[in-house]
């Protein structure tokens, strides 16, 4: 006699959220009025604004609506030479000789002025780069100001920083920064360099020059001796000219791993020192005993903060099998509630992708992911008609060897993989040429310190993500670069320890 199998319906305690209730946020636009953007900017060399020798300028646009914001000078090799000469002159004649505590006071002034002009800088940052105004106002600009303030304090205390050693500055530093945190990266580069007695030639990214130029105005206002900081705009060729200039003692670069390798080859055989802060493919790991809601929020922040344009973005999620279904459900729900829109609207969570070319790269990886057999999910939000926008996306059913799990996408795209045991996830997380950052989500303290000990990454976030502080050293292992920025360890990049 056949027994009838009784099917007991599985109890589900996941509530299906409805997002189509017709309730929406009212627009909350930040006014542009606090910011002044010039029609045209020249090069900031030797404390003054100098015309580019080619007399060429290029446009910078707002990626949210493709409107032109301003035009900036295109520095060629001759301009780079002028800037390096100004920096060298300022170094030998003024900056190297100035008592350290007086150096410090200039940097304190710059820090305070960044605070005074905070709103203006935040608006320009969002207009020029596409990041939401909430982020530039609450994170980028204050952290940049704090970075100047922190390093100002080190200037006259270097005798304590390296036990049994004295320090001397390196000389002229050539610094090339990316477009994802334009003002913050300028602060991360300039502050420790000049605090330790070096002078600087800095090139902002070609799509985001405006906050660096506004910083140049602040530097001029602070009365910093001419030539100590020079800010010149341009694209790849300008950067190459800086890297190759024979009178630059130190190269500091933040950007893609590919360009980092080009730079390392270019300076081989010279006496130039370098620090490189390159790409990443961070593993964010959720254990079954993690506080799930907080972990989901942390993962969302880890990959969608700043549109995923973050070198340390948590772009790989490893979730323990026993909680995978729940976590993935919650991720998808949370993605639905993210607001993609005008960066100048205070409600916006995800702003514009920085450029057409970056948007193309992201689209390319999304189609690669689909071809590789992973399952794509994206939010159903409407995208603005103009500008460069991308919906927050996640892939499930991702294999460890898939290109979307190995290569840096630099966009709002999350690859979700699963694991069973601690050893397995440690091996998978470390299985990457990168090693910039990692995240660990668990309630168990002893597990945290085991994981942090064994992850091969320069920054590990436990039960949090994307936290930065001027006193906290940041930098990568392996092909994510070498050298640290921030904190006591960040001083080493700019001194000779004797």
């Amino acid at each position, binding site marked *: 006699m056949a027994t009838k199998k009784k099917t007991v319906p599985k109890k589900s305690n996941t509530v299906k959220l409805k997002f189509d209730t017709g309730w929406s946020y009212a627009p909350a636009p930040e006014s542009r009025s606090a910011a002044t953007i010039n029609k045209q900017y020249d090069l900031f060399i030797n404390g003054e604004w100098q015309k580019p020798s080619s007399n060429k300028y290029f446009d910078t646009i707002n990626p949210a609506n493709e409107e032109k914001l301003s035009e900036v000078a295109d520095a060629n090799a001759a301009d780079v030479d002028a800037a390096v000469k100004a920096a060298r002159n300022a170094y030998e004649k003024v900056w190297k000789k100035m008592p350290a*505590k007086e150096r*410090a*006071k200039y940097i*304190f002034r710059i820090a305070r002025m960044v605070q005074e002009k905070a709103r203006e800088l935040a608006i320009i940052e969002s207009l020029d780069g596409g990041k939401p105004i909430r982020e530039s106002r609450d994170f980028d600009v204050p952290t940049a100001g*704090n970075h100047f*303030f*922190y390093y*100002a*304090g*080190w*200037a*006259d*205390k270097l005798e*304590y*920083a390296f036990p049994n050693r004295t320090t001397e500055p390196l000389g002229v530093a050539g610094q090339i920064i990316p477009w994802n945190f334009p003002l913050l990266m300028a602060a991360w580069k300039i502050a420790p360099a000049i605090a330790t007695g070096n002078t600087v030639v800095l090139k902002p990214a070609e799509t985001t020059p405006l906050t660096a130029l506004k910083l140049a105005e602040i530097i001029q206002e602070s009365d910093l001796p001419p030539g100590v900081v020079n800010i010149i705009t341009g694209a790849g060729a300008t950067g190459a000219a800086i890297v190759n200039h024979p009178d630059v003692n130190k190269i500091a670069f933040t950007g893609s791993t590919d360009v980092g390798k080009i730079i390392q080859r270019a300076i081989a055989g010279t006496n130039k020192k370098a620090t490189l802060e390159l790409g990443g493919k961070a593993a964010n790991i959720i254990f079954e005993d993690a506080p799930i809601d907080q972990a989901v929020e942390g993962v969302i922040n880890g990959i969608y903060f700043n549109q995923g344009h973050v070198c340390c973005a948590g772009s790989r999620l490893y979730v323990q099998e026993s909680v995978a279904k729940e976590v993935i459900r919650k991720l998808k729900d949370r993605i639905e509630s993210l607001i993609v829109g005008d960066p100048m609207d205070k409600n916006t969570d995800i702003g514009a992708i920085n450029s057409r070319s970056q948007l193309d790269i992201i689209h390319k990886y999304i189609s690669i992911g689909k071809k590789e057999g992973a399952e794509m999910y994206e939010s159903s939000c409407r995208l603005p008609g103009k500008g460069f926008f991308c919906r927050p996306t996640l892939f499930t059913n991702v294999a460890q060897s898939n290109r979307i799990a190995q290569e840096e996408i630099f966009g709002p795209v999350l690859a979700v993989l699963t694991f069973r045991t*601690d*050893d397995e996830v*440690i091996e998978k997380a470390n299985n990457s040429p990168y090693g910039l950052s990692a995240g660990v989500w668990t309630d*168990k*303290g*002893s*597990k945290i*310190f*085991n994981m942090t*000990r*064994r992850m091969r990454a320069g920054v590990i976030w436990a039960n949090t993500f994307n936290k930065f502080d*001027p*006193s906290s050293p940041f930098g990568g292992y392996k092909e994510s670069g070498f050298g640290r920025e921030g*904190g*006591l360890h960040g001083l080493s990049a700019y001194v000779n320890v004797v």
Partner: protein
Amino acid sequence: MEKTSIKKSSLSISENGLSPRTPSKEKKRSSGRLEVLKTYKIYIGGQFPRTESGRYYIPTNAAGKKLANICLSSRKDFRDAVLAARGAVSGWSGRAAFNRSQILYRMAEMLEGRKAQFIDELIQQDSTKAKAEKEVNLAIDRLIYYAGWCDKFQQLFSSVNPVASSHFNFSVPEPTGVVSIIAPQSDLPAGRQGSLLGLVSVIAPVIAGGNTCVVLASETKPLCAVTFAEVLNSSDLPGGVVNILTGKPSELASWFVEHMDVNATIYCENNSDTQKMMRERSAVNLKRITFYDKINWNTDEGQSPYFIMDTQEIKTTWHPIENIAGAGGGY
């Protein structure tokens, strides 16, 4: 010819040495306006009360000219100040180190803005214009120096300890709590700078480290201490973090070291009897006692992160590290 019965200041003639405390009849006659004299009070809990005892004393300069009616603080004032200081500890030590550094920097901003007033008071107290300007500049720079240390000394004096067991083990400095300070009392020997620089030099490292304090100003040169309280009051420094009393160490020193709710004491004179008394009486609650009796505040010897560490405790914390697949040890 008009007879002037007011003795001109005995200071150098090239200065306008007229003290606000001794209004000149000539001045009144020429401008027709009477100057408002400043009342020098004490600073407790962010407020400016008079001493509860109602007493005063009159310090004079080297030429015997009266400086002002200065509050002669009592034991009760000190106890009230300790209450205020204790109340302020959790707030001040709970602030981000960066926030403390911003506030110390603002103290420098405020002091810079009032340079002329401090120079004038120093001159009244027997300094010269050149020396006074140098002293005020050094005091401002000293505040900036310690502003820079607030969020850095921890990085130098902490450690992660490589213990042999599977533990994450770290040691960090923590502020000791309430510190009673008897500020440098005189300008002699050279460089002791009781009037302003010495005062700033003993206060700054204590609060940079997250402590609060009760300070007894120089008995003979108290003017700058009281005006400095005004600088503190306009610097976003929470009330109670620094409390400034004026009066006599001979009366108050023993209370400074006997109070059970004070964690540490700082004393700056070379008086061996007082030092012995302090070590004996402070034992009642094992206060940490520090003597800065040989420091030349005028030089770099007058500033150091080690002065911050003099009022710090060291806390060590242990946390297990899970052993997975035979991973032994830890950091």
